């Protein structure tokens, strides 16, 4: 299109708008109303989104390291965590840092100062994610990492790799466990058998206890070798072990049955439910006072690390022994004779919160999209009717234009520009009103409702309108275009 033609159309559009003054005002008023609702819902949605993001940023995962993890190891673990997808930030907290924050978060924690010299707290990594929705996948990765670190540490010098029946790499302990199970089922000989029997007497004992001592593992291995000698079916060097799950039902000794879950059991909130009550008590009382305290502190530490949104499933069910129960497995494992974690001890996360946040987020989005669609339909139909009237008024003109050889687009343009102008003016007025309204609202909120302002931060007026203004203006212009194009359609047929 030539510039003078554009100028002509623009002039015609303005003229058309001015000529049908009343109708144009009505159309503009409609656009003002529509874009007002649009801007309003955008403001609400964007702010909810923004606040959810703030919460989301505070929901992290804490990875506690075992004691006596060397510096290189710590660094290595840190690097490996950083390389997990959707991890945005990994912060190392030394045991000392954790104690400090525990002291800070506890009112009467000055007694903890005495622990400075002999700090029972673990060091940890605090992990931030891109969003709450990635939590599950990152936790899965961390668990895999935990497993692989453990298996690396326990790897045989000759590089033997242990696989379960599915071909997945498992730790030596797991392998041994599976084998021990097989033994128990079969010959029941030597120290291994005795050990297994002892283990299985304690139905609650998490599998970890059975398998984590190095001596035990060795015993298991030796048992495995013996078995290999006795029954040539599984060759000694094979990594494929007969797995407990493949055993007949009578092998259902709890420890053995739980063996494959040994690593995940720590993060499984339901695990507690299957434990007999006495065991729980036993755990609580058996833990030394200092250990009890330590567990409490660990909870406190992770609570602060979690930015206040922290949920520990087991502590909800048992408030009494809650804190100790929370770290049931730690209580049993941590400091247990002869056992030391060598890599990642525990992965802590708030699944419920993150799932809830993701759900709220999705709900808000869906809701706003629905509102938008309804709004658009209403606005377009109103604009269509308004412009249709101006088109009817100019039917004569369109007719004459057709007779003198005007192309369809030449006829359309002035109406489109007229619609665009009305849409633009309407959404512009609306944007200006909303901008000042929003600024005023933020003012009022920060002055009168300091409580809300403290909980959540809202998006600044300039920041939010940098996004909203173009959207609103585009919305208005599009409304005008769609309205005018659809209303002149039928008058083009001459």
């Amino acid at each position: 299109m030539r510039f003078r033609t554009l100028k002509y159309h623009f002039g015609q559009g303005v003229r058309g708008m001015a000529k049908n003054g009343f109708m144009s005002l009505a159309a503009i008023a409609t656009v003002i109303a529509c874009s007002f609702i649009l801007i309003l819902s955008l403001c609400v949605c964007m702010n909810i989104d923004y606040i959810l993001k703030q919460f989301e940023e505070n929901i992290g995962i804490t990875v506690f390291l075992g004691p006596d993890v060397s510096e290189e190891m710590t660094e290595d673990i840190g690097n490996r965590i950083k390389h997990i997808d959707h991890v945005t930030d990994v912060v190392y907290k030394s045991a000392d840092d954790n104690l400090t924050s525990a002291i800070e978060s506890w009112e009467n924690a000055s007694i903890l100062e005495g622990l400075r010299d002999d700090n029972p707290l673990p060091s940890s990594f605090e992990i931030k994610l891109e969003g709450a929705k990635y939590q599950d996948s990152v936790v899965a990765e961390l668990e895999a990492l935990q497993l692989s670190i453990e298996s690396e540490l326990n790897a045989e010098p000759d590089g033997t790799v242990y696989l379960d029946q599915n071909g997945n790499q498992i730790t030596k302990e797991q392998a041994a466990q599976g084998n021990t199970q097989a033994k128990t089922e079969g010959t029941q000989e030597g120290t291994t058998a005795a050990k297994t029997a002892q283990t299985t007497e304690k139905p609650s004992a998490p599998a970890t206890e059975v398998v984590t001592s190095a001596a035990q593992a060795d015993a298991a291995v030796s048992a495995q070798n013996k078995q290999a000698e006795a029954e040539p079916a599984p060759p000694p060097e094979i990594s494929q072990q007969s797995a407990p799950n493949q055993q007949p039902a009578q092998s259902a000794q709890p420890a053995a049955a739980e063996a494959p879950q040994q690593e995940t059991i720590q993060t499984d909130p339901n695990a507690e439910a299957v434990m007999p009550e006495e065991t729980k008590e036993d755990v609580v009382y058996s833990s030394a006072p200092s250990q009890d305290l330590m567990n409490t502190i660990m909870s406190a530490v992770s609570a602060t690390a979690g930015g206040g949104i922290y949920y520990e499933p087991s502590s909800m069910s048992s408030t009494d022994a809650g804190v100790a129960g929370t770290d049931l497995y730690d209580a049993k494992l941590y400091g247990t004779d002869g056992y030391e974690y060598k890599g990642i001890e525990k992965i802590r996360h708030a699944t419920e919160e993150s799932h809830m946040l993701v759900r709220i987020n999705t709900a808000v989005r869906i809701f706003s999209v629905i509102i938008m669609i309804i709004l658009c339909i209403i606005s377009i139909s109103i604009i269509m009717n308004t412009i249709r009237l101006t088109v009817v008024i100019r039917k004569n003109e369109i007719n004459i234009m057709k007779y003198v050889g005007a192309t369809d687009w030449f006829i359309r343009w002035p109406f489109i520009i007229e619609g665009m102008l009305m849409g633009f003016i309407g959404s512009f007025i609306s944007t200006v009103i909303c901008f000042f309204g929003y600024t005023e609202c933020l003012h009022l909120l920060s002055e009168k409702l300091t409580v809300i302002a403290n909980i959540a931060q809202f998006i600044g007026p300039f920041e939010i309108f940098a996004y909203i203004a173009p959207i609103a203006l585009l919305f208005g212009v599009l409304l005008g275009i769609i309205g005018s194009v659809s209303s002149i359609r039928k008058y083009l047929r001459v």
Partner: protein
Amino acid sequence: MSSVIKIDNVTKIYENGALGLKDFSLDIDKGEFVFIVGQSGSGKSTFMRILLKEIEPTTGDVFIDDTDLSMLKRKKIPYLRRKLGCVFQDFRLLPSKTVYENVAFAMQVVEASNRNIRRSVPQVLALVGLHKKAKSYPDQLSGGEKQRVAIARAIINKPPILLADEPTGNLDPDTAWGIMELLKEINSRGTTVVMATHAKDIVNRMRKRVVHIENGVLISDVAEGGYDDEI
């Protein structure tokens, strides 16, 4: 001489069953002045509208400048109409535009340059004798003057053909004759003029080619004829 309009065996039956034209054939050569005469409802306007591709013939072919109208895409219709200036009984001027603007409008529509518009419009207004009324609005003009504006608008883009459907229908005899003189002048400059009319005296005085239609059927076609020649 090549025919600028060629109508071949055209039949037009409207959706409601009314007969517009029946087995109608006609050739019009470049530069001719042709009267289409016949009683009211005989099919004169149907003939004009088929030329403008406002309506499609039910059967038969129409060629304008060797272009088969039935093959013409919808998008190309505006370019066909630029070859056909048209004038109607009811003038069809834009009341909100001045005389000058009404004429300039036809040039803007075909995206002529402003310079071109400023040069051509006064020339055409001078040709139709309205150069002094350029700033008037249609309401301020007499019927004859309105029709002159309409003619000026129809010829401003120099179309090879001018279609006039009863251009004198609303005018008194003297004014009508003035319009005829103007059309004759336009025709003498090379434009083919096709004019539908009831006005016997005008047809008889002009001594041009007369095509007579009754009930959609061509009943006579006489060069330098009169209205009642064959009847």
